[in-house]
């Protein structure tokens, strides 16, 4: 995910990716290096998780993405001929692919920086969620709401957005979301499948509100499908091939590395190694790399701020006693909040 962003966004003014003298792309390393520094500066100790092989069920989605990329390549060629610079830039960005070498380079960089990473056997989101669930990390940071379906206790979105965008970081607590939606975890997964995930086509005409209603009425997907099939005149059409059980299984029993065997360690950065790799091989500015390494070292030393949650347990809630009028207004607000939560992506 991040590597794509960097390859797309980290560019020079003329729209070219950053390269070293021998013409190798370095956008991804640049982005990785400085984003990690920013994360560490804010007192967060990151663990990177790399995607493994995609699950078979994602083939449909991946094929679609491939077609889109092919289209973009064509449009890029067209733009080149007509000399439309703005379009050319736009479509060039859409043709980006992360190569295996770039993945390996990113891992090498992390190793030199002393930052741990995990190779997920399958979907990275599933592995992130498993790490958070096992208490190895506090939260999973991803833009992908699927992470919640893999039952991460806490999901952080917009963690690494640019500060200039003034976008607050969103923290989603799974338990509270389930409470708010009044759903069980399997029901929540069913709800998300109904709304469309990477593995299955969404059902046309089913938006967040309808999906929530359907799941609540019929308890689970089996019930919803039976209901739709029993009412042929209903406006919803289920695709002919719709193996929702498989998708559900992917979410509830994902292919992951056993978190117990993973040893996550933050180590001292290998400064000579970083200089050798980034400055000599990749043409980075030596001063900046050294300054970055110093920041890594300093932040590694500082002790982690603990949280009270581990010591004190919630025993109840106190709610201010609102008057009838204000209560009504509040309820209206609450409903809106629920809808927003149900929405995917």
């Amino acid at each position, binding site marked *: 995910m991040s590597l794509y962003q960097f390859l797309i966004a980290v560019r020079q003014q003329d729209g070219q990716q950053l390269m070293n003298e021998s013409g190798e792309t370095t956008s991804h390393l640049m982005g990785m290096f400085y984003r990690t520094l920013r994360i560490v500066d804010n007192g967060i100790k990151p663990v990177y998780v790399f995607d493994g092989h995609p699950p078979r069920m994602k083939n449909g989605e991946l094929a679609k993405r491939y077609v889109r990329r092919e289209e973009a390549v064509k449009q890029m060629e067209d733009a080149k001929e007509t000399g439309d610079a703005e379009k050319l830039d736009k479509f060039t960005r859409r043709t980006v692919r992360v190569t295996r070498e770039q993945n390996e380079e990113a891992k090498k960089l992390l190793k030199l920086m002393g930052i741990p990473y995990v190779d997920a056997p399958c979907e990275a989101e599933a592995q992130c969620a498993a790490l958070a669930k096992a208490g190895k990390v506090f939260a999973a940071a991803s833009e992908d709401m699927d992470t919640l379906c893999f039952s991460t206790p806490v999901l952080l979105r917009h963690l690494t957005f640019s500060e200039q965008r003034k976008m607050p970081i969103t923290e989603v607590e799974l338990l509270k979301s389930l409470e708010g939606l009044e759903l069980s975890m399997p029901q929540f997964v069913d709800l998300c499948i109904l709304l469309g995930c990477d593995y299955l086509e969404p059902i046309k005409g089913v938006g967040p509100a309808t999906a929530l209603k359907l799941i609540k009425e019929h308890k689970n997907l089996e019930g919803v499908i039976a209901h739709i099939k029993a009412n042929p005149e209903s406006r919803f059409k289920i695709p002919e091939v719709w193996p929702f059980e498989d998708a559900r299984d992917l979410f509830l029993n994902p292919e992951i590395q056993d978190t117990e065997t993973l040893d996550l360690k*933050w180590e001292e950065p290998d400064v000579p190694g970083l200089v050798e790799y980034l400055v000599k091989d990749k043409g980075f500015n030596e001063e900046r790399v050294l300054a970055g390494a110093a920041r890594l070292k300093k932040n590694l030393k500082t*002790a982690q701020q*603990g*949280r*009270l949650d581990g010591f*004190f*347990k919630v025993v109840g809630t*106190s*709610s*201010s006693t609102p008057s009838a009028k204000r209560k009504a207004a509040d309820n209206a607000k609450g409903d809106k909040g629920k809808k927003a939560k149900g929405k995917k992506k």
Partner: protein
Amino acid sequence: MLEGKLEQASLFKKIVDAVKELVQDCNFDCSDSGIALQAMDTSHVSLVSLLLNADGFSEYRCDRNIALGLNLTSLTKILRCGNNEDMLTLEAQENPDSLTVRFENTQQDRMSEYALKLMDIDQEHLGIPETEYAATITLPSAEFQRICRDMSAISESITIECTKAGVKFSCEGDIGNGSVTLKPSASADHPEAATKIELSEPVSLTLSTKYLLNFCKATGLSPSVSLKLADENPILVEYPLASGHLRFYLAPKLDE
């Protein structure tokens, strides 16, 4: 309905000033025993707990338990409208929409009244387990404030180390390091200026300077402050009030 009268507005002003550094909005839980407040800061690192007993008010009555949801920045604005020596009355009706704040000056010839709109706040209540603290240090609150202030210039964290011989505050930063050691002392004339240490075993905690400095906003409330420490547990910083207390808890920084 709630009616509570304080002889001096300054007490309530100082409390709100100290609490508002940590939380923006919180519930004041009023019952016939007094007014209580418990709230965590947004990052769940510190907790403030206030208790104002009914007998600390010159007049107090509360027929039914109510939680008053207040925005502390707004409350501060209202409290600024009164002088420190004014008498302060807090008043709320049954199922209130607003809190009435009334000031009367000492000559009793000027009376001002303000109403502050209430908010709906759902707040989690935390159970604080009984902790056996390894050390309880009582020291002048101004001394504690000075240590925190001095060290804030050097480092983001302060280590408090307590042994039989005394208590040592130390810090280490980019520009250098520093430490302050206090030995137990007694002063017959000024008991509040004494430093006392009760210790069952040596203990050491590393804490965020920023949060400690925020707690020190309560210095004006009490001449002395007590620090209670137990290994790997949150520190308790307590400012005793004439009838009640203002307590702060802060989770320690932990080495991996």
